[in-house]
């Protein structure tokens, strides 16, 4: 009777063993599930086309902004200069948002040296950027993140 029950016992043990393995495997699987990477700001903004759309709206806003548009008269007058400024702005925003771009323009101190830009003008330009992002539906949190990065450049721009 005891002898007879040995195969049944072995079978039972095997079953329990394989079940517990199964559950272990499941636990292991849970551990190795790679967490979905949080999208970068670049991805959340919508990539290069969305950034170029924001930049275009931003430039148009600057042109229509009586507080600062005179500052950009020489730029608007020269199509090549406008083209370069736009390219630099797209690269700057894209790189700040951890996108696949490299800013190749001047440093902010070099670019704004001698312009004596005031705080009022700085705020006006930031306002134009905010308006551009808002009108194109950029989420508030993403706006804040970008502004946090670009806003840090203020000491290199104002009063230079």
């Amino acid at each position, binding site marked *: 009777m005891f002898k007879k029950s040995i195969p049944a016992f072995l079978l039972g043990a095997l079953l329990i063993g394989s079940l517990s393995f199964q559950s272990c495997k499941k636990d292991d699987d849970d551990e190795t599930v790679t967490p979905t990477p949080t999208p970068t700001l670049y991805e959340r903004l919508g990539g290069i086309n969305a950034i170029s*759309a924001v930049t*275009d709206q931003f430039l148009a806003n600057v042109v229509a902004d009586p507080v600062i548009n005179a500052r950009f*008269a*020489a730029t608007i007058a020269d*199509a090549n200069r406008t083209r370069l400024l*736009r390219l630099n702005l797209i690269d700057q925003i894209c790189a700040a948002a951890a996108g696949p771009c*490299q800013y190749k323009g001047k440093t902010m101190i070099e670019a704004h040296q001698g312009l004596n830009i005031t705080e009022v003008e700085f705020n006006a330009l930031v306002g134009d950027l905010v308006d551009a992002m808002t009108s194109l539906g950029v989420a508030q949190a993403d706006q804040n993140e970008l502004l946090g990065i670009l806003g840090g450049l203020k000491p290199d721009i104002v009063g230079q």
Partner: protein
Amino acid sequence: MKRINILFKIALASVLVLNGAFFIYANTRTLSVSEKVKPVTLAAYQTDKALTNENLAQLKTNSAQLKNKITAMAATSGNNVIGITYYSDLISSSEIASTLESNNSFDLSEITFQSSGKSCPISGIKAQWNSLLNAYRISDN
């Protein structure tokens, strides 16, 4: 005379080689992600009256007709400057002006800025270099 002839030939060969090298460089270099974005032209228009909210609404309707030809339009109530970015290969600045003007109570004129003024000459050189490369490129984007 013979010497001048040789010098001329050398000069001609140099120009041809230089142009060829430039052409190859401009067309084979890998463009960055941002350089692949189609370039736009920036224009500023002045209205003869300060813009009202009705004008703004009409401007919005009018600019919607230019979809895919202009990439952005900006105008604010109480001001009289309109900013536009557009693809100059698809539409001219005067066409934009007449479309924006239609059914609106103002006259519009493009503002032509002077390219002089205090500015860093390096920006100019860089911009010229950029435009030279673009001139040698077969495709614009």
